[in-house]
């Protein structure tokens, strides 16, 4: 028990900042409360109200679409890059640092970059696309185009994370496995499907799990890029939650939203992980 003082700082911080407030959020979600009023117990009515709110449904739908599209695209690109890096390319260390660079960029600065690059009147990327006769991202008034922008921005910011995890997993794989596979007459494709993918499976699962959970809480990118607009059409759950709490002062429904958000991200992540795990096992 002499170790308690050493554990105290971590436990105290988590207790005061995360655990007790989270319990309070659960309590709040069953009450009606706004600033300066005594909270009143209302049962499940906050949840019902949130679930029947079209704005919430659209926010939840947007979040799921962005998470599913962005996380998978990111995973594919990162996997390709990890294999490319591993296949022997010159200046690997320098390239690795270059790939890490976006990790240092804040959401705010990233949004500033992308708003300028894709600006409809003066953005260099927009102008380049126009010269090439390609369609332009009309992200400031087309919700679908705005969603594409958000997906691109998210991938840009988080690719370093996914890439590093996959690359490290690939580096840790013993090379004699491939020699054995070659001797047995396996083709390149067979090597990939039967050796690389199953062995990298656990790392892919971990990276996916992390990215699912973190992408689900996305706030700043959307808030700074579109503010949820036009007309709340690009809101994600975290932005909806922020609006409920800090724009409409509805802390009860905001708390219900918060718990729905945690639940949804857990369901999405766990269902997905369970499926993948079964596939990885079957492939072996």
């Amino acid at each position, binding site marked *: 028990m*002499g*170790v308690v003082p*050493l*554990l105290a*700082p*971590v436990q105290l*911080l*988590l207790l005061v*900042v*995360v655990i007790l*407030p*989270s319990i*309070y*959020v659960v309590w*709040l979600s069953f009450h009606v409360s706004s*600033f300066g009023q005594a909270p009143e117990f209302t049962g499940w009515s906050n949840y019902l109200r949130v679930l029947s709110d079209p704005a919430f449904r659209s926010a939840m739908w947007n979040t799921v679409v962005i998470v599913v599209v962005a996380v998978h695209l990111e995973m594919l690109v990162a996997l390709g890059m990890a294999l*490319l890096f591993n*296949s022997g*390319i010159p200046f690997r260390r320098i*390239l*690795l*640092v*270059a*790939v*890490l*660079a*976006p*990790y*240092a*960029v*804040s*959401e*705010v*600065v990233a949004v*500033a*970059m992308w*708003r*300028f*690059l894709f600006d409809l009147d003066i953005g*260099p990327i927009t102008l380049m696309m126009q010269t090439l006769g390609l369609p332009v991202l009309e992200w400031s008034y087309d919700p679908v185009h705005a969603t594409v922008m958000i997906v691109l921005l998210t991938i840009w910011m988080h*690719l370093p*994370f996914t890439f*590093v*995890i996959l690359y*490290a997993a690939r580096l840790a794989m013993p090379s004699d496995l491939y020699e054995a596979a070659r001797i047995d007459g396996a083709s390149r494709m067979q090597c990939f499907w039967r050796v690389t993918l199953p062995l990298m499976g656990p790392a892919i699962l971990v*990276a996916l799990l*992390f990215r699912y*959970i973190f992408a*689900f*809480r996305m*706030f*700043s990118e959307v808030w*700074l890029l579109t503010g949820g607009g036009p007309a709340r059409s690009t809101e994600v759950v*975290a932005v909806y939650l*922020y609006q409920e709490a*800090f724009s409409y002062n509805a802390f009860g429904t905001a*708390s219900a939203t918060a718990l729905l958000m*945690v639940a949804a*991200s*857990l369901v999405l992540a766990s269902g997905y992980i369970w499926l993948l795990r079964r596939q990885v096992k079957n492939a072996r």
Partner: protein
Amino acid sequence: MRAETLLIRLGKAVAVAAILFWSLFPIVFIVTSSLKPGQDIFAVPPQWTFQPTLQHYVTLWTQWGVFFRGLWNSAVVTVGATLLAVIASTCAGYVFSRHAARWLELSIVGLIAVRLIPPIVVTLPLFPIVNRLGLSDTHLVLIILYATFFVSMGTVLMRTFIDQIPRDLDEAAAIDGASRLTILRRVIVPLAAPGILAVAVFVVVFAWNEFLFAFIFTGTNAKTAPLVISEMIGSIDGVDWGVLFAASTVQLAPVLAFVILMNRYLVAGLTAGATKG
């Protein structure tokens, strides 16, 4: 190893070029644009040769004093949060590495479970409490929040790193009469330095760049640099792109240099944190 065909080499070169363009173009673009004189920023096609000028930085310095106060606030908060997170995580990681007990196992599961709670969720109850305690718009509230959201990952990471230090070393020190705190300070900390640096990289990057908590909990006094930049983006008079690029460059430069310098620890931390935590 088989000799690669020319085609494969070419394909790889194209892929590498694409990766470099994707990762670096936005960064290079914003930094070079911040040095372009007035109208050259909007030149079509973008100009890559120009007379570099510091005019946007001068404007930033003369008209956006609030930005430099924001930088100072960011620096204070980053240093504070990093120290707090590193010290707390190292102490706890040491206990988890060297002691085994049922309640410790349970509490490490709790540590990992805590990471599932999104930061925005705790802002709901904390907002009124922070206001009532008079902590709103202070450095302290951001330091505590930033540190807290990294102590669970930090603890798990430190445990992984401390696990690699042979126990014989602390046992020998204990026989020589060293207290637990002395062992931690004299034996563990020097040998676990890579782990400490890895945790520090995570917290520094997060605290320096964070937007949501700063947006909700600060207003004027403790406003951080990202918040000032977000105001520049949202400015109703139209965005002054030159100044915005200059501010972005100033905000980005130190943390980018830090990440480049510490890339080994960042990679080690990401790998250990992801596989063990």
